[in-house]
């Protein structure tokens, strides 16, 4: 297993944001993490990144503990979310150059140009971040996320703010990375169709707990308690959230 999360919990005062969550991701797998707002998805991702210290539990990535090998692990993985930003006065190129230096790339300009091309924003290279649309910003985040050719990618709603055509391009880029380089991806999204298409397995979080886990079709059949030929995660989502809320 590339990622192993065991009994992970996080408490902020009285509030239990993540409650005894366990899961594992195989090498080269794309795993979806679903759940309503406040379910604990982002907190879990931040704990995997070492940005938040867990209250209890264990995170192991590439067979090493995140608590003791943070730098080594982070050099081989990456992350993006449309909800984090870049210094807005710096151009796209300048921002990406900073990360290229952090990852000590040998030919940073070539790598950056290739990534800008891949995500269709080559013409924005010398524009300040402040002058980009939300969708363009998201794509700069994706360029940053692919900068070090990561073996593990954590993507928090990577297609939020993207129009359908660009979202389709991004999904293809992710699938290509998985197919060609065996990149392992942990993917959160509110778009159920996207998750069905992208992810081999998913886990559902609600109130910080894993309430369902499996392949999209397994989860659909188990939660809806009927035979289905196609996954129906949207229905599952509504059933789980309403059912648990009730």
């Amino acid at each position, binding site marked *: 297993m590339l990622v192993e999360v065991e009994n992970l919990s996080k408490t902020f005062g009285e509030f239990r944001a993540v409650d005894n969550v366990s899961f594992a991701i195989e090498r080269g797998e794309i795993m979806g993490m679903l759940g309503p707002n406040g379910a604990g998805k982002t907190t879990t991702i931040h704990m995997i990144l070492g940005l938040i210290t867990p209250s209890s539990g264990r995170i192991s990535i590439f067979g090493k503990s995140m608590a003791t090998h943070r730098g080594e692990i982070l050099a081989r993985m990456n*992350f993006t979310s449309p909800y*984090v930003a870049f*210094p807005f*006065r*710096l151009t796209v190129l300048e921002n990406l150059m*900073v990360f290229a230096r*952090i990852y*000590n790339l040998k030919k940073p300009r070539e790598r950056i140009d290739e990534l800008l091309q891949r995500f269709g924003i080559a013409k924005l290279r010398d524009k*300040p971040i402040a002058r980009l649309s939300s969708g363009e910003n998201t794509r700069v985040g994706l360029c940053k996320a692919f900068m070090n050719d990561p073996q593990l990618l954590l993507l928090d709603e990577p297609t939020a703010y993207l129009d359908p055509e660009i979202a389709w391009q991004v999904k293809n880029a992710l699938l290509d990375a998985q197919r060609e380089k065996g990149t392992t991806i942990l993917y959160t999204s509110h778009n159920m169709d996207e998750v069905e298409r992208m992810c081999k397995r998913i886990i559902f979080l609600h109130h910080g707990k894993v309430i369902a886990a499996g392949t999209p079709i397994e989860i659909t059949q188990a939660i809806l308690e009927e035979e289905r030929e196609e996954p129906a995660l949207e229905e599952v989502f509504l059933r789980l959230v309403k059912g648990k809320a009730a």
Partner: protein
Amino acid sequence: MKIHRINAVIVRHLYEARRNFDRLTDLIWWPVLDIVMWGFFTIYLAHSSRLQPNVVSCLLGAVILWGTFYGFQRDMAVGFIDELWCRNLINLFSTPLTLSEYMVGLIGVCLLKVMVGLCAASAVAWAAYSFDIVPWLPMFIPYMANLLFFALALGIAITGLIFRYTTKIQALAWSFAGLLMPASCVMYPMSSLPRWMRAIAWMLPTAHSFEGMRQVLAGKGFSPQHFWWGAGLNAIYFVLAIGFFGWIFEQARTRGLLVKMD
């Protein structure tokens, strides 16, 4: 610690300095404006028959050194606030970049900036008021080092407070050094202070640096006493600042503040 990651932090802030008009004014405008204003004041004093020798040099020297101290402390804190304003902390700390690498990079870029300001102010003082700081530098450098070391400890402590209380207390970045100015005896000797304030002044490395600088300009030579007092206090404040910052950073990670800062 990896040099390429420290370099990345320096480059990030140099890009910012180039593109941010506020940072450019901090860099050159205020040090030059200060020296121009105080220069005119010294010209006014020079016309007074009661002017004591070396007062002009003392004032201009003090303005230049205070600008260096204040600029370094401010740039440290503002450099970090910049990351909060643009919500860049998650991006930075989800990479292998460590906190110590970030801080060393920030210190490096602040040192560069403060040297630019120091050169600009010194050049104006020399060109407009015939005050040449260069001959004094060999004896000033130990005091300047103490000033920068104290600015560093303060910058680290204030950055720690900003980590904990976020931009709610960002005004401290610009104002904290000002709080210390009266007891730092920048423009006047320590003997001018009331007795109770002298005790405070003795605990400030800044006061020892300015006192030492005045002795040099008065022709009394380098004061090892003021230098070593300043250095000793700095060592204590630096250890305290580092300990405080490390503790605050761990608190920020435990409380999830690192990802919620704005």
